[in-house]
C-alpha cells in the first residue's frame, strides 16, 4: 500500500545532524515547502468540510466522524481518493477519510492475497496499527491522568 509518495526527502529534519543543518534546510527549502504546503492545504480543506457540517447541520461529532470514515471507503472504492493521496500525502491520510482509505486499500490487498478471507481480514489488517495504538494509548493515558475540573 503506497500511501505517501515522496518527491523530496527532508534531510533537515534529522535531529542527529546538528552541524550544517541550517544550510541544508535552506537548500532543500523550496521542495520541502511544496510537500508541506500541499499537506497543509488539502488537510485543512478536509477540516473545513467538517466545520461546515458542524455549523450548518445539527450533526453530532460522532456522526460527522462516521460520515468521514465511510466517505473515505466509498471515495477510495470509486477511485477518487487515491489521486488525492498521491497529491497531498499526509494531507489526505491524516484526516479520518484517510482511515477509510486505509481500510479500503487493505481490503484490496487482502483479496489479492487471500481471496474471500481477505474481504474480512484486509481492512483491519491495513489499519491495525492505528486501532491498537488508539486502544492502548487510550487506556494508558486514562489510567495515568485525571480529568480537570473545567471551571
Amino acid at each position, binding site marked *: 500500500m503506497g500511501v505517501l509518495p515522496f518527491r523530496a526527502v527532508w534531510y533537515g529534519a534529522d535531529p542527529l545532524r546538528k552541524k550544517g543543518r541550517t544550510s541544508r534546510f535552506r537548500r532543500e527549502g523550496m521542495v520541502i515547502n511544496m510537500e508541506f504546503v500541499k499537506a497543509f492545504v488539502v488537510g485543512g480543506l478536509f477540516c473545513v468540510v467538517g*466545520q461546515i457540517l*458542524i455549523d450548518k447541520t445539527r450533526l453530532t461529532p*460522532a456522526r460527522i466522524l462516521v460520515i468521514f470514515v465511510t466517505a473515505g471507503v466509498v471515495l477510495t472504492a470509486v477511485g477518487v481518493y487515491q489521486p488525492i493521496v498521491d497529491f497531498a500525502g499526509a494531507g489526505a491520510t491524516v484526516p*479520518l477519510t484517510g482511515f477509510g482509505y486505509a481500510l479500503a486499500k487493505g*481490503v484490496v490487498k487482502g483479496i489479492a492475497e487471500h481471496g474471500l478471507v481477505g474481504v474480512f481480514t484486509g481492512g483491519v489488517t491495513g489499519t491495525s*496499527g*492505528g486501532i491498537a495504538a*488508539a486502544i492502548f494509548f487510550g*487506556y494508558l*493515558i486514562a489510567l495515568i491522568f485525571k480529568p480537570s475540573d473545567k471551571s
Partner: protein
Amino acid sequence: MAVTNMGYGNMVKRKSKKSPLLKNMLWAFCVGGAICTVGQALADLFKQYGLSLLDASSATSITLIFLGAFLTGVNIFDKIAKHAGAGTLVPITGFANSIVAPALEFKSEGFVLGMSAKMFTIAGPVLVFGIASSVVYGLILWIFRLF
C-alpha cells in the same frame, strides 16, 4: 399559546445567534492543516530512518494518536479544540481524543464497565461503519472478480 410549533420554530431561528462560520472555518483550516503538516513531517522522518512507506504511514498514525491521547490527558486538547472545532476533530487526533476523553471521565465507574466500555461511545460507531463499509466494498470487489 398563540404560537404554532412552526411559527415558534421560525422565531427561534430568527433569534438564535449563528455560529461564526467564517471564523470557525479559518480556525479549522489552520489547525487541521497544521496537524496534517506535522503528519507529513513525521512520515518523512520515519522514512528517513529507513521505514518502508507502509510502516512509515502506520508509524505516523500511531504517533499522532499518541499525541492526541497525551494532549487529552494533560487537559490541553479540549482547549485547542474549543477554537479549532473540526480542525482537531477530523484528523486522526480527534479519533484518539474521542477514545481517551470518555475513558478518563468514566474511570470512576471502574476499569471494565467504566473506562473500557465507555472508550468506544464515539470511536465504536466509527469502527463499525468503517470496517463494515470496507467489508461491503471487499464483497463487491470479490464478486466482480468471479466473472
